[in-house]
């Protein structure tokens, strides 16, 4: 793959911008028969907590139009099991791994960051702020700029210096930009936008909520416009903070939409439930889409914010061999027609 697809989240350089979304790729082993995870930008793990968790009783999922409503209750093996079985496997396979962490208290986030400190194979840490904060009567960290920032600060303070910290934010807030600013101030190297959208379905047969958790998180193409809006707004306010766009990415053009809105990377989530090889396909399609537009990924990030008539730097079709050309092309073709 050419350097036209490389991207960067803080100090972490990725060969391409396509990731898996947390909670959608299992341990990685389940997807391995269907796609080569080493080819992806990174694999993002299911959120890890300090203790093993059984999660919620079934039914945990309900189908929604173009989406899926889920309330899992963050099931997982706990950090010990994760470090014993899951992370070593990912490391052995040389899969770049972003470890998602979830806590019910600021202290739990700090503890998780400490546990990941001396461990090899952690490319970055993603702070899942969509967790109930026990100290705040179970309200989500994500709902309050101060609480989300506190979780990020705790992870940043205890994580290995140099390992980027991403804050994953929920869209169900009055102003996501305020939360994003607070997290960036607290030391987040990047932001993952968005987590699922709170929703609910009622089973008209049983006359009761369809999910044991009553409400659940909506994901899939149904939420994509919400996610694109969040990415656009946050990128406008914080153009220098890398964003991982998540929410209903199912094709290369979906991914490109997020990139144009301001995402430096995208994550494929619910699509993996339907098509285990979706992430590598999205990568291939995004690469083709950028090539067709004669663009490098880096030049496409946030392009939708530019005034109409702006022409991004063009690149030649895939060079036949390694030449000194690319740099010259980039410099020579600086026809920046910024219209007034």
């Amino acid at each position: 793959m050419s350097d036209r697809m490389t991207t960067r989240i803080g100090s972490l350089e990725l060969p391409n911008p396509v990731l898996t979304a947390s909670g959608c790729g299992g341990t990685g082993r389940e997807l391995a028969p269907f796609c080569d995870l080493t080819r992806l930008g990174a694999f993002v793990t299911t959120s890890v907590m300090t203790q093993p968790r059984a999660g919620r009783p079934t039914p945990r999922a309900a189908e929604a139009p173009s989406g899926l409503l889920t309330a899992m209750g963050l099931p997982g093996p706990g950090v010990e099991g994760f470090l014993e079985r899951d992370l070593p496997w990912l490391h052995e396979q040389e899969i770049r791994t972003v470890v998602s962490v979830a806590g019910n208290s600021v202290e739990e986030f700090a503890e998780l960051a400490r546990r990941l400190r001396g461990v090899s194979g952690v490319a970055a840490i993603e702070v899942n702020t969509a967790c109930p904060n026990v100290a705040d009567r179970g309200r989500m960290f994500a709902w309050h700029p101060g609480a989300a920032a506190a979780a990020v600060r705790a992870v940043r303070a205890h994580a290995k210096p140099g390992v980027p910290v991403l804050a994953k934010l929920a869209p169900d807030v009055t102003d996501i930009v305020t939360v994003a600013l607070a997290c960036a101030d607290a030391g987040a190297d990047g932001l993952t936008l968005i987590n699922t959208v709170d929703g609910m379905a009622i089973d008209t047969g049983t006359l009761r909520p369809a999910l044991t958790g009553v409400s659940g998180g909506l994901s899939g193409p149904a939420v994509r416009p919400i996610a694109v809006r969040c990415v656009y707004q946050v990128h406008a306010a914080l153009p220098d903070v890398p964003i991982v766009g998540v929410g209903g990415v199912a094709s290369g053009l979906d991914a490109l939409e997020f990139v144009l809105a301001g995402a430096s990377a995208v994550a494929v989530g619910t699509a993996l439930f339907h098509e285990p090889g979706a992430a590598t396909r999205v990568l291939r399609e995004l690469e083709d889409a950028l090539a067709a537009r004669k663009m490098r990924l880096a030049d496409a990030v946030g392009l939708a914010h530019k005034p109409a008539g702006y022409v991004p730097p063009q690149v030649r079709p895939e060079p036949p061999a390694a030449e000194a050309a690319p740099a010259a092309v980039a410099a020579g073709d600086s026809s920046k027609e910024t219209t007034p």
Partner: protein
Amino acid sequence: MSDTPVQTSATVLTVRQVQDYHAITLVAPAIAERFRPGQFVAVAIGDAHSGRLVRRCFGVYEVKSDYGGTVELVFADTEPGTAWLAGRRARDQIDVLGPLGRPFRLPRDPVNCLLVGGGPGGAALFALADILHRRGCQVHFVLGGPTSRQVFGSRMAQRIGDSATVTTRDGTMGERAGVREVLPRVIQETGADVVYGCGPTSLLSAVTQVAGEYGLPSQVSVEEFLQQTGACGIGVCMTCVLPVHGEDGVTRMVRACHDGPVLRGDRVRWGDLGTIPFDALGAPRVLSASEGGSK
């Protein structure tokens, strides 16, 4: 690895109504050649632009070598996804993932096997019967349902089984009884050494219990539970979990699609399906003052 599942575009060969159910035959050589009895397939509903993201999981009735390899599924039309599938026509293409999950374990020696089925799930027992016969096992069937139209494969069972007992609640076919009531008698008459089950959860629970009373091992497929709760079929979505206790005595929430659909009946906590038992690993606990304080 030939047991690696594949995602393939399968051509519909036939769709037909069988009693109250639908049978669909798909040309899917890659799945047919990998299939082992007890495994299932996950079918994508709708085309690429469909709003339906959840795959539907079905046990496999039989695989044949015709047309390079066909896979036949039997299912009840219970919701919009199965209605869509029932509405397919010959030559339609559908996206199928499989074969998935753990198959039935087979006995090493030629023993007496009792195969107990109910509803469309009973269809999954016929591929098993075939392989057991080839291993020199005796195969006895017990099939049951509320009414004759909901007993799948009774004629086939009578033809290929060393014995076949059919029960219906309303007496429209076979004995007027529930499967559970005839099981002790059939176990004694057939001298069964092992019991296999596939069908509704209540049936599997009964099969496990009666087999246990006679000291027999039971292998059951929780395919129906998987159909109701599963979304991906490959173990990433975590929606099809049920409580199973392991050799170490610890109850874990395991994925029906990944650790099953065939499970040892005596390991499943049937009464606790749809719950997280309080003693399961990682179950929510009421934080006592001492525990809360230790944090």
